[in-house]
């Protein structure tokens, strides 16, 4: 005797192979796998960064889109992962797998602990306060990294080297890609699980969820912990790829800003929107500096033109504002809405 819920779920699963989104994702994966064939390091670098940040944005989306927690500390956990492996590998003698593993485990443990501790605050203070507190903590982490010079290399940071397969560009690429795919799978399962549904209920109406008997704080802590741990692992991947870890590039506020912009472009609450957000932003960041050359070519000799095109972050900021105004649901969100309306 199957219950209606089970029957519905089974039907949903059967339909899965016919849904276009699944094929889109497989296609994207195939494309990413084939990228190393193209002999361009710039492309390889871009592709990998898109993959890592897409997953990072998705983890943030779990926090903000699915659980409804506004936090500015997410980049901090990313930094934890990066610093964790970098420290373990540089300070632990030689680049070995066990060092790497230890560093990663320590970072994950720290992230889990910190996220639950910060989460405890959310019980006592209002949402807006909580957002500001996470920002304060993130800044604190940054300053700590700068000030603990002897340990962390201060402002100059660390240049770790990694063992075995990871030392080779192609090897690192595939290992990280595999990790990203696994993480996406985990996040997707998390969101679709009964736990994920409870979280969405909490996001939509916390009081009601509590009235229904769910200890919202526990669920929110679990979600927060999960999201932070994913971010930490991704931070480690980033450190492995870039081979250089310093406060500004891994803990700085602009990573948080980038995440925010990517999640807005992709769409809050869509999980996979992170892919589009990351692709768009990182590609733009890679090619916009060339605008300077374009400006110089079109209007040679004009200092103002040079200055205007040199500061491409300006257009960034304007784009940011326009996207928030006109596409509050992001690309994926708007597409989903249009499609559901047509049905």
């Amino acid at each position: 005797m199957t219950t209606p819920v089970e029957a519905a779920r089974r039907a949903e699963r059967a339909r899965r192979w016919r849904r276009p989104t699944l094929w889109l994702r497989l296609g994207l994966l195939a494309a990413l796998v084939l990228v190393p064939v193209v002999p361009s390091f710039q492309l390889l670098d871009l592709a990998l960064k898109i993959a890592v940040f897409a997953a990072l944005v998705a983890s943030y989306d779990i926090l903000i889109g699915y659980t409804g927690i506004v936090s500015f500390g997410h980049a901090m956990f990313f930094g934890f992962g990066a610093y964790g492996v970098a420290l373990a590998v540089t300070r632990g003698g030689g680049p070995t797998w066990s060092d790497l593993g230890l560093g990663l485990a320590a970072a994950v443990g720290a992230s889990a602990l910190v996220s639950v501790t910060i989460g405890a605050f959310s019980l006592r203070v209002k949402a807006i306060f909580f957002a500001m507190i996470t920002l304060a903590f993130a800044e604190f982490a940054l300053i700590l990294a700068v000030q603990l010079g002897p340990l962390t290399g201060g402002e100059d940071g660390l240049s770790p080297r990694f063992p075995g397969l990871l030392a080779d560009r192609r090897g690192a690429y595939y290992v990280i890609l595999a990790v990203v795919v696994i993480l996406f799978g985990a996040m997707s399962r998390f969101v679709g699980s009964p736990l994920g549904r409870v979280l969405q209920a909490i996001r939509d109406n916390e009081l009601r969820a509590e009235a229904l008997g769910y200890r919202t704080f526990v669920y929110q802590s679990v979600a927060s912990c999960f999201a932070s741990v994913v971010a930490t692992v991704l931070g480690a991947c980033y450190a492995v790829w870039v081979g250089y870890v310093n406060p500004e590039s891994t803990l700085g506020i602009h990573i948080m800003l980038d995440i925010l912009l990517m999640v807005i472009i992709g769409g809050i609450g869509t999980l996979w929107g992170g892919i589009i957000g990351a692709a768009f932003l990182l590609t733009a960041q890679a090619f916009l500096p060339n605008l300077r050359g374009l400006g110089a070519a079109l209007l040679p000799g004009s200092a103002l033109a040079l200055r205007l095109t040199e500061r491409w972050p300006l257009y960034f900021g304007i784009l940011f504002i326009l996207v928030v105004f006109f596409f509050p649901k992001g690309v994926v969100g708007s597409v989903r809405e249009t499609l559901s309306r047509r049905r």
Partner: protein
Amino acid sequence: MRRAAPGALVVGLALLPLAAIEPRVYLTLTIAGLAMGMLIFLVAAGLTLIFGLMDVLNFAHGALFSWGAYAGFTVLVLLNQELGWAEAPSVGLNALLLLAAVAAAAAVGLVLGVVVERVIVRPVYGRHMFQILITLGATIVLEELIRIGWGPNDQVMPVPFTFQGSWDLADVIVLRFPVVAIVLGLAVYAAIALVLRRTRVGLIVRAGVENGEMIQVLGHDIHRYFTGVFAAGSALAGVGGLMWAMFSQSVRPGMGGEQLIFAFIVVIIGGLGSVSGSLLGSLIVGLSYNYVAFLLPKAAIGVTMALMVVILLLRPAGLFGSGK
């Protein structure tokens, strides 16, 4: 009792380091701490009122701080280049110059504030997430415009002659500029308190901070007050920026962002919507930072964070917060 406790806290905090620091150094540090606190207060006061009344998280406040600094910087440099007012050893001219710079900073802050409120903030009333994003976007744009207009590098900020250096009072070195900052901060606090408690506008703002909906159904156009408060807060941020630039003797395009985090911590400690809370919070932050920086330089920011955490654990809405 409830209102006396935080004041006692500040006094206690201020006296504590006497145990570890020699009195003369202590006095210098205290003045520096009070000055730093006052400068943060200028930024935090506007921020807390904007949040209290409008429920808007204004991340663009830092950019207004920077613009105020650069506006004042331009005035100072121009008047100094043309007329030598900064270098002249005349108290009158120096004071006039300072006044001109402050006026410029306030005016620029005010105008930009009105523009930001109308164009950027108004369309997203009530939606916190979008306010945060959009004011961040505005910050990026505003800071980039500074880089385009004045160049991306740090520049030296001229300080009028009279306010440079220090006085030597019975072997105690008292830096001049911090004293100016303290006096200005107190004057601003007194002015705000006067407006809030003695004028009709202040009454409406106080009521609106407590219950925005009710003030509307009592016949007041709250949007006009929104713009007014936002503009006033922005003007204050601009002046704060100018003063900070003179305090640290440099201007940097990113200076606003760096100070904004202090302002946020102060607003959290003081309670959203409370100007007195911001004053107290600023003094706590300014004093503790300076004392600790002297004793254990690396621990300064850590102690500030720890203070914030402790205060929040005891008073989750901040020292004078109304639980908003």
